[in-house]
């Protein structure tokens, strides 16, 4: 799979960030509820971007 296609995984994380806290986690009033979920979503976004932009390093500047 082409590296840039992984951006779709980012959009999937976004979708889950809307759905999960408002459904599955809406009754979990602890730190391991929506707080942890969104925190992990943030970390996943960083990791995905590191991976997706790896090719930028190979681009010629001139």
């Amino acid at each position, binding site marked *: 799979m082409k590296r840039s296609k992984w951006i779709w995984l980012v959009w999937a994380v976004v979708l889950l960030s809307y759905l999960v806290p408002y459904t599955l986690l809406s009754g979990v009033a602890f730190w391991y509820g929506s707080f942890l979920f969104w925190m992990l979503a943030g970390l996943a976004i960083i990791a995905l*971007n590191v991976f997706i932009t790896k090719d930028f390093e190979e681009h010629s500047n001139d």
Partner: protein
Amino acid sequence: MTESLIWWSIAIYLLIAIGIAIMSRQGPSESMSGYFLGNRQMNGFVSALSYSATTYSAFMMVGLAGLTYAGGVGALGFEIIYFAGVSLVAVFGPKFWAVGKKFGYVTPSEMLGHRYNSKHVAMAVSIASCIFLIPYSAVQLAGVGYLLQGITDGAITFTTGVVLATVIAIFFSYIAGIRSVMWTDSLQAIMMIVASTLVAFLVIQGLGGFGALFDTLATEHPQSLTVPGPGLFSFVTFLGLTIPWFFFSISNPQVSQRLFMPSSLRSMRHMLIGFLVFGFIYTMVSVLWGFSALAAFPSLASADLATPTLLASEFVPPVLGVIVMIGIMAAAVSTIDSIMLTLASMVSRDVYANVKPNVSEKRQLLVGKFVVPVIALMALAFAELQLDLIAVLSVAASSGLVAMVPALIGAFYWKRGTGVGALVSVVGTSAFVLLMYATGNSLLGLPAGVWGIVVASVLFVSVSLMTKPHQASSDAFFTAIAEELGKKRRTTTEQATKEAAA
């Protein structure tokens, strides 16, 4: 925290920042791209810090902490969706950069005008950006005003804080254009991330540790740990807040203009990743501030007081409190000076130079420099109106700027998009959003933040299909991207050839 400690700290901060701003100069820049884009030679590290400082305004430390205080964990979700939206830089960044280099664009609006072969598109985008971003700057200024007033118990008045921030912002932009802005931004970003993390750490320790903080929240404010929670974040409100912010990195010209500036795609990558790491820490810290304030001071009169109260509390040593307070003021300044420069470049490049053709670069630059303080004074006037909830007003700006998003996406992905389509989409959506806010911000139960992107897309696509695209300019645009992004580092290609031969 005494008044004299605050004034001395502001003086010391200014001395260091002015020193850095002066050192950032690189001879007189007489071109538009020199002054407004740092000659497209900015490195990744400074770009990352400055991008962070520009994006994370006073809104973060005052507004997001306040939003967490009032609405609970939904504030974190809101910020994480914005944060995920910055991934759009990974998709659009290289394309912006490639055409910027090829055609010498200074502003994103100039790019759209050229792509759609329509001066009117460039002018409309510039004017709409001013309409929405000047109030947004005003919100930042008001943030400084509230903060200084709150933390000194009114010894430093709202107006003093607002005027001070305006003067500093004008000054930083004047010293060396974007270069001085980016270097002072970097100072602010480093200072802020260290100091604010330290504050979060100390406050949480003071409240008995992370576990105790969340236990208190779970027993005394259980709703703050879920959405919809205490009621602020109903799903519709959440959508209305997050959709515009998701597109922030391409819809807001003060950050999308940054995509023209890195010296290479490598630098752009460093800018993006650096920003994400910084932004993640900053987000978590702001939210934890809000939660800590809720646990320690549950009955504040206004949510915007969460941060000032926390900084003035016994948990934070006065010197650290002052450093963070200065940092928040600097955060507002670093957002405003970038917005002022971007808007000034748009007004001179896309409005003035289009109305009055054949003006020299030098003349454009002069006009741009004249516009900087005019914009600042307008923002000052808005701030003096003292509008209430900081976060809501700044989101109004984002809802409006969503008007540019379909035209921008179409520029890179839809050859059939036309200048008339882009123009109608930008003007129509801006007017629509303004009308929505003027009439209570609800249509069929949905806010402007949700409607904006729908209206803009429908207008862009339908009007484009009814009109004729300008083939030559879209071909030139797409060819330039393919050519520029097709270049690989020579050594890599050579190596690959050798390996293949072996």
